């Protein structure tokens, strides 16, 4: 079964290790803007917010995609992007309500969190317990 990532803002120290682990696993490099997740520090450090795809049940990104590059995996429910099909038009980015999908700054293809197919690397690396993986 695949679950979801819960973010405990009060435990997040804003270290960005989650994003670095993400870019290292997905792209073999370190780069915050190549990661599929993001931590944003707000209110002069009082608040850290976490940006991640919420794997909508009826995703706007999937509906708007003109080339059907976005699909739901039947078994897990994870929303996946077929980078071969993706043309980088950016419509999915425009309609996503939570900034959960973006264009990779290098490949210009849509990228998003796929929960590492059930074994999220960001949760494994998070040093404070701010990220938790829950399987329902």
């Amino acid at each position, binding site marked *: 079964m695949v679950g979801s990532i819960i973010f405990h803002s009060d435990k997040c120290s804003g270290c960005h290790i989650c994003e670095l682990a993400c870019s290292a696993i997905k792209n073999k490099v*370190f780069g915050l803007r190549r990661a599929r997740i993001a931590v944003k520090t707000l209110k002069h450090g009082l608040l850290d917010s976490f940006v991640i795809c919420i794997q909508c049940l009826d995703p706007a990104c999937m509906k708007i995609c003109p080339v059907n590059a976005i699909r739901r995996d039947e078994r897990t429910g994870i929303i996946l992007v077929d980078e071969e099909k993706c043309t980088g038009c950016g419509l999915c980015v425009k309609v996503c309500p939570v900034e959960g999908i973006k264009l990779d700054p290098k490949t210009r293809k849509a990228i998003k969190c796929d929960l590492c197919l059930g074994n999220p690397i960001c949760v494994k690396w998070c040093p404070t317990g701010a990220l938790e993986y829950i399987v329902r």
Partner: protein
Amino acid sequence: MVNNYSEKKLYGYAGKILYIDLTKRKVSIKPLNSELAKMFIGGKGFIAELLYDLLPPKIDPFSPENALVFATGPLNGTIWPGTKNIVGAKSPLTGIYMDSYFSGRFGAELKYAGYDALVITGRSDKPVYLWIDDGSVEFRDATHIWGKSTYETYDIVKEEVGDVTAQVVCIGPAGENLVRFATIDADVHRQAARCGGGAVMGSKKLKAIAVRGSGDIEVAKLDEFLRLAEEFTDILKKTPDTRMYSELGTPSCVPFANSEALWPYRNWQDQVFNDAVNEYKGETQKERLWVKHRSGFACCMQCEKVAILRKGPRVGEVVHGIEYETLAMIGVNCGFADLDALAYANFLCDYYGLDTISTGTVAAFAMELYERGILTKEDTGGLKLEFGNYEALHKLIELIAFRKGIGNILAEGVKRAAERIGKGAEKYAIHVKGLELPAWAARGAPGMGLQYATVDRGGCHQRGWPIMYEVGGLALYDGTTVERLSIKGKAKAVKWEQDLTTAMGTLVLCDFTRFGTNPKYFSMALSLATGWNIDFNEFMKIGERVWNLIRMFNVREGISRKDDTLPRRFIEEPVPSGPAKGHKITPEEFNEMLSEYYKLRGWDEEGRPTKEKLAKLGLLL
């Protein structure tokens, strides 16, 4: 040295240096020289090399010729724990080499944008800020933010560049007004605090720099690098040192500093202040001020604390938890034990952009002069500058930031201020080479004294901390131990500390990541990131090379044995209380340590690196 990687790709590096001339508004980009990268690695090494190369001798630090250099190393931007940021220039406070570290991810963003270093020269004719967005560099008008605090500047610049994730460094009014110990502020609450980098920015009419990068950093051996980073992170998390910092931050050392009589009370007239221990220690701050832990970039330690002002004119303002140096230099040194008054003083320094160590020193210096009658109420504009009077201190901080009244003299730093005031004030000026000393004693720790006397940027505790051997009782690298008040073995400890911290500086690593860990991890991480085979001995030699190059910079500016000194108080007045009661560092002991240190360094009796030494380090080309 054989490696299997192409010379074209410098793993761990962005591969370019960005040069900005503010006078001509000219931007140029040069490729990073791979031979220089191997010799100096990055960070502090690049700053030393670039400043030695770029700056003509004896220039005025406020002249357009001075260069402000931000540099990164091969670990910046990667997942390696505890990479910081470093900026260097010729210091307006000391007139010699300076560098200053700060937390945050400015360096990582710079690398993601494509640059290993940023070199800023010249002087803009009107206030300006820079927006570096990958390959694009914009000179943006800053007239509307000139005069604003660091807090406001940070918010306005982030709003104008339109991305909260961009990184911003900026100066406050103190930097604009050329206060010689003005900070460069990063992320609102963190500062490149020491040596007056903020005044260098002010002299260039450069209010802020914002940077964002969408690129990435590739290391040579990713899988092994990740395994090593994971292993090192696990060690870090388990060490008692790290756990202490996570729980209580740097104020965790308050009880130790007081019981061992190592912190400054009333301008170092004493080194014990029992009343302040409970008020300033970590547990109290945690209960009364802190609301959240923060970490440096890619760090698991969480030593930084977010706090809220609970009282006073700016109640509700988000501030940083009060670091040990600040609570000791401002609270203890100015003779008051009141956490809310201290938190407000800390806020004022951060808001206007003042170094809390130097501010605490000049304030305590002025208080001692006032109590001794060297400064009168007329000199202070009516301020009753008595020890413990924190309301007067709050006013004094504003006078310094805006260079008004007595503040205009103190804004020059304690050395120049003492010269201006005269009447024997020099005796009470606590500095080395013009840099105000931090909150660790030399009386009761003579190795710390030698450290202060010989540090590249002047009186500083961050280029080695021999107190851990002298008072902490830890064994040196070779397994030997030292006696607290003896001078034996101290020169050796100081040299080792300086070479190691400088080698770590080339990787821009936080000092705290060496406590309770093995420094061999640093050379291993460097090797896996770059693909070069650099063992620990070679790593230490790189540290020694950079230290010697900086000494050559300082020798070129006229530094010699006569400048490697301690404040008179530490030589003349025995410490009045605590475990080292009665101790002072005699001139004979000091000179013996210093000569031994020069000998170990391969320097002549005047403290100049010999030709043989420089040749051995590859510094004579």
